């Protein structure tokens, strides 16, 4: 191993890719179901996107255009690191423009621009099991999914209402996919949940450390869990972006001075740049 090691296109060997693609196909066939897969040890740490990276590597082709975001931004360090990984190992074209990308790997956000048919959104997932914090045992949660036994989740949401007057879950807000499986949307803010419903793009979820892949096929019903008298409410983001003036988008809060002064800016950097370009014209 003196010479620089030669890696296969997109790092993973073809047998591994085939194994992952089979898991993806199964996941698409059973929307919202967590498919166990033989997750590989990747050259980046567990919890830093190994699942998303494996899914992207398995579906990436030479003519794909890849966008990688973290917190909605293309320039956050881990997004930069993952984008570079694929530039180096696959040599594919990358972009920051949502509408140009054929594959978008994301952590914690769904882009503001509506996704289109033919696009694939790959989520990085830390804990794929929506019931995990209610029941720590995998043997138990798999049984609960099999029996569609989701009572414990409704009890949790009800207890939230009893204690806080509303459902106090603001991210990783559980959804029901195609009227069957309760699914963790990954730690995206619940602001993004409505974008998952009836989405023209394919949504794939990869959890490397937990060795699970799941999927929401295009145009699939995705419903955020709620009660008739306490319907799901999207986080209301007050105000508009300091840089581009956009309203109705997810805003990051930035502390700008020692006196605690704050401004709000778009979390989606591509959306923000486009809005500023349009204004400049």
């Amino acid at each position, binding site marked *: *191993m003196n010479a620089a*090691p030669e*890696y296969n296109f997109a790092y993973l*060997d073809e047998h591994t890719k085939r194994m992952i693609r089979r898991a993806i196909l199964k996941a698409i066939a059973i929307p919202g179901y967590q498919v*166990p*897969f*033989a*997750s590989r*040890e*990747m050259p980046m*740490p*567990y*919890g*830093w996107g*190994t699942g998303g990276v494996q899914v992207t590597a398995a579906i990436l082709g030479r003519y794909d255009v890849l966008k990688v975001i*973290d*917190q*909605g*931004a293309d*320039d*956050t*360090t881990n*997004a*930069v*690191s993952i984008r*570079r990984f694929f530039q180096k190992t696959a040599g594919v074209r990358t972009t920051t423009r949502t509408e140009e990308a054929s594959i978008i790997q994301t*952590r*914690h*956000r769904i882009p503001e621009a509506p996704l289109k048919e033919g696009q694939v959104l790959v989520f990085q997932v*830390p804990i794929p099991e929506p019931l995990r914090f209610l029941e*720590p*045992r*995998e*043997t138990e949660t798999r049984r609960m999914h099999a029996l569609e036994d989701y009572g414990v989740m409704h009890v949790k949401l009800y207890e939230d209402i009893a204690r*806080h*007057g509303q459902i*106090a879950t*603001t*991210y*990783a807000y559980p959804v029901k996919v195609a009227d069957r499986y309760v699914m963790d949307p990954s*730690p*995206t*803010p619940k*602001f993004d949940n409505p974008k998952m419903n009836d989405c023209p793009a394919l949504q794939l979820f990869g959890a490397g*450390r937990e*060795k699970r892949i799941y999927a929401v096929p295009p145009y699939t019903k995705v419903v955020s869990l709620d009660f008739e008298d306490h319907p799901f409410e999207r*986080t209301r*983001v007050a105000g508009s972006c*300091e*840089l581009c003036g956009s309203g109705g988008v*997810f*805003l*990051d*809060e*930035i502390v*700008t001075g020692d006196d605690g002064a704050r*401004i709000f*800016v778009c*979390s989606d*950097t591509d959306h923000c740049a486009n809005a500023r370009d349009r204004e400049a014209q």
Partner: protein
Amino acid sequence: MYVAVKGGEQAIDNAHRLLASERRGDLAIPELTISQISSQLALGVARVMCEGSLYDPELAALAIKQARGDMIEAIFLLRAYRTTQPRLGDSVPIDTSAMDVRRRVSAVFKDLPGGQILGPTFDYTHRLLDPALMGEGSPGEPARSGDGARIETPRVLELLDRDGLVETSPRDRDVGAADDLTRTPLEFPASREQRLQALARGDEGFLLGLAYSTQRGYGRTHPFAGEIRIGEVEVFFTPPELGFEVPLGTITVTECEMVNQFHGSGDEAPRFTRGYGCVFGQSERKAMSMALVDRSLRAAELGEASGAPAQDEEFVLSHCDNVQATGFVEHLKLPHYVDFQSELVLLRQLRAEWEAERAALKTPAGVSLREAAE
């Protein structure tokens, strides 16, 4: 005015250049060589090979150098390399009875065929810092006895097994089809092979703590160190096109067989049970911890489960891997602005509602809170 956080790429490059420079340190001090690390820090190399699941002292030493002595980082580096290597086949199970032993001790018999061999051990050293090691020097020739021929050392548990005093080892089963933990996802309940693989790769400190907890009463197993042996074993492989075994080379392993709490029933005469540990290189602490935890994880099988942490298969096997654990713990360093912002919005809203309610009640906050609690 706020400046957008551009320049992530440049920051990453600069951070890595600084890292490389700090790793090398003072240029006036000679650089560590790989052979220095593999020969003089051999126990560290053994740990990296064991938990990295790759027997290669040279690459393990390189990993330690690159990781600046951070063992878990070195294990991670070795694993990330290992995962790219093709799997050509399974070796023939190693025969530790045929081990060329350097050290072999039993805590259950005072003397036994082959004898007690202390070998290179820290045991019975007085832990006094040795100022002589501040400089360079030669430790002198080690003492030798015999003609250098291999000493026959039958396994202690086989001696017990001959009289039916300990359960028979399942090693005659077809282990050729053992699952590879790195190629198939772990599912519960795990097979014994998967469990032993997971423990062999598991974090030494985590297993040590769990093993210790069983000794302090959280799932006691009444262990005796039946035998600990360290030495070299030959690894054989049967290429399908040849159909006979060919030697691949020699590896150093540490094996520990614990003799535990006896069991029996109406159908079965009482006999001791076993716990098994086996690791690359010289690491008695890890092998012994593994053997204790292996035995604890058999609690359900043997009908003695009491809810102790070391008896809980999902708990132990899901959390013993230090590369997984460090990745997930350290991922908290990654930005979580978006989720935090969502929580801020909710918390501000809840606080506003709380203030409004309190104002409406027009009672001192302390009073209303106390009433709510009662």
